[in-house]
């Protein structure tokens, strides 16, 4: 019997025993076609999905090598049906090809007649294609390129897009590597995107996705439209680009709620693009405002649905997606695949951590017990008030104070959801509070003070902490905040758990009320964090208050 590190399960998951001596090697081999689902301390789970297999095909891997990898590292017999399925799924990618015909323009080509007949029979495909040229070819209207790819994927016959791209308006962009260097994985990521034409680069939080974007721009040397999640993020992109490239202040425009600049490099927020005026998307013309040579989508996994629709129309432009995870809460991974492109680069999380690009983190859940009278109120409260009552209890305040005091030589973020709770905590701690009502300018000022060490403690609301880059925060204390989507949580934690200059371990505290909804949400968080491989402990508030080492 083979003694490999991998167990191939019949439900298409792969279990990787990470203490095995071949684990690293096996991980590298399966990463191109299997998605990492969770990575707790001993056994990591990967999943084989059709999309993952097509991604692998797009990256040049064939079924045989996937099967070989599975057989090579598998400890037990690999289920026969799974092997067959791998081959069949991978064989489906690329049977249909979108090509550019000198006479007819865009065409859909397929050497396999039954497949072509099958897809052309579909009611959803029929309106997207034009005249049948011969047995193997049918004309496609150029504006339906994205739609068609989307529908074909839904039918299980993803098309390979050979129709090429427009170059866009040329614009000189170079990287300026003074005082920093492009890390080799960043270079590889940008290169594999460029050779693939369009696609998604998957990198963990803190691995420098902005720099990958900049590197891609320096390869495209063309006008670029960058789509980001919000204004703070837009500003961060801008300052990074100024720092890392030859671009100047005048060349970079911001297109957001407050400013509407269109320049050779324009950074726009998803928000402004999806703003509707009288039922219409008011800022769609941005896509046609210039002859863009490259479009960058930051945080692809958060891409709002309308943006997908716009993206379908611009399939002739190069598209780069950046994300930490391809998993989308709404299950639209296939739209990412068909509209932005297949995964072009993915670096295993553990490799990055080993190289010190990602911070190790220590997660501690501190449990407080509600006093008798609050428990009574909680017990009789309406359902919708319960969480608030449990999460915003003042019992948490002394614990937070104690924790802040404990980390007196580190910078601390206190994160919460309820404004009055935050205000109260701010007062207790003598720290400024940043929430949705804080003006952008004021926010940036506070963040800057926090970054340079002038400010040691900052209290932030959920709205404000989203997508903020505070690499020097060594400690985060979450006092309230329901558990939303998995990505949101990852994002938030990822932000504060950036690698530290001195490589020290980041701390994440969650203060929760025992036996309440608060604790139930904490259980979800605990699972999520444990699945990400973070160490997770539970301690008693009394131990914290007594000053025990936790």
């Amino acid at each position, binding site marked *: *019997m083979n003694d490999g590190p991998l*167990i*191939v*399960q*019949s*439900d*298409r*998951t792969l*279990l990787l*025993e990470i203490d095995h001596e071949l684990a690293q090697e096996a991980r590298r081999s399966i990463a191109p076609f299997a998605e990492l689902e*969770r990575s*707790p*301390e*001993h*056994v990591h*789970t990967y999943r084989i999905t059709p999309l993952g297999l097509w991604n692998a095909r797009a990256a040049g891997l064939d079924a045989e090598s996937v099967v070989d990898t599975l057989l090579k590292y598998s*400890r*037990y*017999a*690999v*289920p*026969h*049906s799974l092997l067959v399925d791998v081959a069949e799924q991978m064989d489906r990618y690329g049977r249909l090809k979108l090509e550019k015909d000198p006479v007819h323009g865009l065409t859909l080509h397929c050497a396999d007649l039954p497949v072509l007949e099958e897809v052309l029979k579909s009611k959803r495909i029929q309106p997207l294609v034009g005249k049948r040229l011969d047995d193997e070819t049918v004309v496609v209207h150029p504006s339906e390129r994205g739609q068609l790819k989307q529908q074909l994927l839904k039918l299980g016959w993803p098309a390979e897009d050979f129709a090429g791209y427009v170059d866009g308006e040329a614009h000189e962009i170079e990287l300026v590597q003074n005082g920093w260097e492009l890390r080799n994985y960043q270079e590889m990521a940008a290169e594999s995107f460029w050779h693939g034409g369009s696609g998604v680069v998957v990198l963990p939080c803190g691995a420098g996705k902005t720099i990958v974007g900049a590197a891609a721009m320096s390869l495209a040397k063309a006008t670029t439209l960058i789509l980001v999640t919000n204004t703070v993020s837009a500003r961060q992109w801008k300052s990074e680009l100024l720092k890392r490239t030859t671009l100047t202040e005048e060349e970079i425009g911001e297109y957001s709620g407050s400013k509407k600049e269109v320049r050779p490099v324009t950074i726009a927020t998803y928000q402004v693009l999806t703003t509707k005026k009288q039922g219409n998307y008011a800022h769609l013309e941005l896509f046609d405002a210039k002859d863009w040579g490259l479009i960058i989508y930051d945080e692809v996994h958060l891409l709002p649905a309308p943006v997908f629709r716009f993206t379908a129309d611009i399939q002739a432009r190069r598209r780069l997606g950046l994300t930490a995870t391809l998993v989308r809460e709404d299950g639209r991974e296939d739209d990412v695949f068909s509209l932005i492109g297949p995964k072009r680069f993915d670096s295993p999380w553990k490799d990055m951590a080993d190289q010190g690009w990602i911070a190790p983190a220590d997660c501690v*859940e501190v449990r407080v017990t509600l006093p008798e009278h609050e428990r009574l109120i909680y017990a009789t409260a309406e359902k919708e008030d319960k969480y608030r009552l449990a999460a915003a209890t003042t019992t948490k305040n002394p614990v937070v104070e104690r924790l802040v005091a404990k980390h007196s030589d580190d910078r601390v973020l206190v994160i919460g959801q309820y404004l009055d709770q935050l205000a109260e905590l701010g007062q207790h701690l003598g720290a400024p509070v940043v929430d949705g009502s804080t003006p952008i300018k004021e926010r940036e000022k506070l963040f800057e003070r926090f970054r340079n060490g002038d400010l040691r403690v900052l209290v932030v609301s959920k709205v404000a902490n989203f997508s903020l880059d505070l690499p020097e925060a060594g400690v985060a204390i979450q006092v309230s905040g329901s558990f939303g989507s998995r990505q949101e949580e990852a994002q938030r934690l990822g932000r504060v758990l950036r690698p530290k200059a001195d490589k020290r371990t980041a701390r994440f505290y969650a203060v929760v009320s*025992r*036996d309440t909804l608060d604790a139930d949400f904490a*259980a979800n968080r*605990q*699972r999520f964090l*444990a*699945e990400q491989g973070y*160490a*997770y*402990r*539970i301690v008693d508030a009394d131990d914290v208050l007594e000053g025990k080492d936790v």
Partner: protein
Amino acid sequence: MTPNAIPIKIGQMPTKTPPKPRKVKADDPGALVDWFKSQDDDRLRDLLVHRPDLVHPVPADMAKLAARAATNSSITRVLDQLDAWVVAVAEVIACLDEPFGKKELAVLLNNDPELDRALSVLKARGVIWGTDKGMRAVPVLKEVVAPHPAGFGPCFIEERPDLTAVASKERIKQIFDKAPKGVDDVIDKVLWGPPVLVVDKLNREATTSSAKTPYEYLMAQGVLIATGRHELTLPREVAFVLRGENLLPEGLSTLPEVSIKNTRDAQAVDKAAGGAGLHFVQMMEELLDIWGETPPAVLRNGGLAQRDLTLASRICDEDENIAALLAETALAAGLLAADESNEPLWLPTPAFDLWRTRTVQERWATLAEAWLTSTRVPSLVGKNEQVRINALSPEVDKPLAPEIKSILLKALVSLPLGAEPNEDDLVKHVNWQRPRREAELVELLVRSFMQEANLIGARGLGVLATTGRALGEMRYTMPSPEARTAAARSAVADPKGHVIKTDPLLVEAIAPLLPEAIDHFLLQADLTAVIPGPPESHVAAELRLLGYQESRGAAQVYRFTESSLKRALERGKSKDDIMAFFTKYSSTEIPQPLEYLLNDLVRQLGDVKITDDPIDDTEPAPGEKRSTVKLRPRPAPEGSPPDAPLLISAIKALRLSENPKAKIPENGSNPPEPMPASELVSFLSKAIDENQSITISYAEGDGTVKDRFTDPIRVQGGLLTGFDHTETRIRDYALSRISATVITKAKKNGK
């Protein structure tokens, strides 16, 4: 009749004069009954083993045996079990006048060396009898092989005297010399049967000169005879001439060979089969587990709704064919049954609870044997005949299935190790073995079973594995009488009365193929436990109680949640039990959050241990339902020979009936002693096992109590079956009427 018809080339007509069909000069072998009487015990036994219908019930004497052996239904059953060559020979015999000699037959078949085998098979089964110099066939044979024995049409010589002229080599040659194009093709179609052609446009008045088609030309020449408005028939007289030296197609006497597509490493094959077998067992457990909690309804026709099959396929994460195979195998193994309520449900049986406590290899053996002997054909599920066929419905039943499975496995066993056979050849092979069965059905069965064998772990990588060989050697459809006797005795019910059959041969076959069972697991901070390989059953059972299974396959992953641990606590586990279990079997530290979760729960629920009794693994968990149906042991497959004691007694009875003066064994001096009802069965079983004769005091229907000297054969369903020496016949005695018993005299060991 013949799938592989060999076209005869008209240009090469036979050189010698074809034999006339009605020319006989052979010894008369006498009547069938005399033939039976003259056979020794071994030959009789052979006959009865192959024709079990002859001993059910045991005939009173040889005359009755012979009469039953010559009935249409019995002979049909015999022929259905024979291969293409033997059937073809039988069909040729049916065209001959009787008695006939072997020599005469050999000439007609071009001295085919396989003729001897065919004759001896037919003789052993009592279809024909006599010596080489003169034989007869049972008269009903002609009826059974009608309408076209050996592919021949009827004789037309009476109605069409002109046929005498046509049916000669010279005349035929003349006719074909002048024939228009396409005549050869027409003859090819009818020569080896069926001899009837349906033609769209047929001018029955056509003459040689006005014939427009080859059909009309041949008709005008008298080679074909119009037997209907659009129907032409090749008369037997002409076919005899056309077929030439051999009345049967060349090559029919040899078993079609199975070519080899690929050869694979036997070890890799076994590994794959072991993996598939393990997977199959796991899927079965998973599916029935879930059906125990949320059972699907029984449709009015007795089947499983399509919706439920789809759900089942999702549970197993496989396609619907596999779900159907699982459901059908569960049914066949007695692990699943419909209950008897007003709105019946498909539910696991109590035997399922017993089954799941066994080792993987034992569990597999139960499933594999059930599959082998099952008459269910899951691949029919989803097919449309008049209506869509549902899983678990009566339409899925094909009595032919086990027989074909057995033949198929035998064919696969005969291939070299690691050889991947060509499936088309296998279809031909099996069709040759059972030519009288519907060829389409046989093909469907062969192809389905090949797939099923892959899934169940009898084959790996498309090649028969060690497990499949073991199954092939069992040949359950035709086990020897001794094997059946042994099997019946080994299937002993557990104390609760549920039967789980695990054949040691199968257990041994799969055991080394399965990955080694693992008795530890890894506990992780995300509250999962991973057993990194096939688990020891008690560890898995415990984890199943404590958590929810998340992933299956070679390894298993369980997730602990508040509700899963709560369930365990409610079923009487204490926190200490659980912690002790984790400490004992976890190879990693117990994650702190897990301990916290458990503490929280105990704080909420209170750590009350409900009972000190050990939890009975064979009891379903609360909330799980079980079928109330009492399952009877499965009957032996149709066509199985009677078990050994019955056979011996039957022959003995037949012999005694021939010779009524045979010495009746004297009763011993001991009169029967009163026997309490509670001890009766064990006394009788012992007597059967030890081959003892007994005397019983038996109350007859008229109320008289008589001593009966008898050889007990079996005890079943409240009846003792035995050979009654006084009546010289096999009869049943009601156990309730037996008041006293005694061992009378040790019998000689019967043959």
